[in-house]
């Protein structure tokens, strides 16, 4: 390669690399100080970015009105009014039984006080797990769980369900109705949607911009190509320097 051609190539490559190097340097510096900048805790709620990552925006999946309070599920998180509960996952059923409240889920029944404090988690026997059609009910102040004509009763300590040997379901008088889904008031809905974490953080986006995965598996290959261009620029620069 003669001198004018090497100079032309060197200049063209240098212009391409200016942008790439600035972008990589800035993202690298940000990642180096990720904790100090609190990047892992900055939630991204932009619908386009969430869609790009295949994530759905926060939506109210379930909401129940309980004695002037609200139990809401947003994505996988459960809230008591605007307070995050230490519970996750789908609500199969909510049964109030003063002064308690029972939330039936796939593999457990959460046992709450009437003020929304979690008292304990009651594990469901394997047979009762993930059974959406099972029904929690109260009869004569006793809590029962019924499935396929089998009745399980909650023991006196509220720690486990025990299979009832006397399964004559006609003898039960259901005294408390389970709650049904109600539309959440708009003010609380807006507040909760603003509070709900999206699961996508600014740290993740900057990291994937830095390593190229933001545009998929082709990203790292493009960065490899960029590294190759840097090498070519160095070589053409050295050559120009020697042949001065």
């Amino acid at each position, binding site marked *: 390669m003669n001198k004018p051609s090497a100079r032309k190539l060197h200049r063209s490559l240098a212009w391409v690399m200016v942008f790439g190097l600035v972008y990589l340097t800035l993202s690298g510096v940000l990642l180096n100080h990720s904790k100090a900048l609190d990047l892992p805790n900055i939630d991204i709620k932009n619908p386009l970015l969430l869609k790009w990552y295949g994530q759905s925006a926060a939506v109210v999946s379930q909401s129940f009105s309980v004695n002037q309070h609200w139990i809401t599920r947003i994505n996988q998180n459960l809230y008591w009014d605007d307070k995050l509960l230490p519970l996750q996952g789908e609500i199969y059923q909510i049964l109030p039984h003063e002064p308690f409240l029972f939330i039936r889920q796939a593999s457990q029944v959460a046992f709450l006080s009437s003020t929304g404090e979690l*008292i*304990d988690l009651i594990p469901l026997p394997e047979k009762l797990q993930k059974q959406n059609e099972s029904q929690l009910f109260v009869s004569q102040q006793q809590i029962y769980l019924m499935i396929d004509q089998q009745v399980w009763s909650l023991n006196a300590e509220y720690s486990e369900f025990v299979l009832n040997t006397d399964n004559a379901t006609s003898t039960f008088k259901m005294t408390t109705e389970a709650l049904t889904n109600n539309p959440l008031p708009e003010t609380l809905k807006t507040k909760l949607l603003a509070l709900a974490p999206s699961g996508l953080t600014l740290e993740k986006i900057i990291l994937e911009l830095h390593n190229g995965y933001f545009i998929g598996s082709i990203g790292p290959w493009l960065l490899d190509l960029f590294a190759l261009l840097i090498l070519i620029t160095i070589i053409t620069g050295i050559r120009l320097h020697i042949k001065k």
Partner: protein
Amino acid sequence: MNNLALFLVSAKQISSKPIRALLLVGLISFSAQIHAAALSEESAAFLASHLQENPNKQYQWLTGEVKKQVTLVLDHPYYTLRVPYWQSGRDDNRKTVWILEEIGKHKPITVGIVIQNQQIKSLRILKFRESRGWEVELPTFTQQFDGIALKSPVDLNNIDLTTHIDGISGATLSVRAVTKLSKLALLLQQHIDTKQGSAKQLTPAPVKTHSLTNH
């Protein structure tokens, strides 16, 4: 209505403080037996390896003064209002097993703690769910807790252990969570020992005062 509901309903309706206190004592002493099926495999194995007799599952309620003290230890309230424990043996041979959980960074770490004579006899990580900080599961870390107790007299403003626990670089939050749980177990043990008449009563937690300013 069962005992549990009766206690809470009564406590809500009764305005007299002494009667409420009595009800609370009743509530705290409330205990129950459990079947092993309700426990995870790791927890059941931990229990079986430390308590030979068929142990009773009992509950320590985290209400009132106990709740305040727990909040001081953890810097936040415990995630449930009751904590299970199992006991077997008598007098100096009585062992108590606590199974407690605390979040390291994002996910809860389940820890089993055996206490005898107000000292930790054994501590083991029963379930570690975080992606980092797994080093706390190593015996070289957990063995540091053997024989440890709460510094006496217990200062509720600064509950401390008799021996310093060495940290692990890269596992700071997990180490902190496990250390907090060890303090919590020892504190709760003092409460149940007080109840059972084998320990000095703890003084109430200090009340945080907030100065009021004109706006």
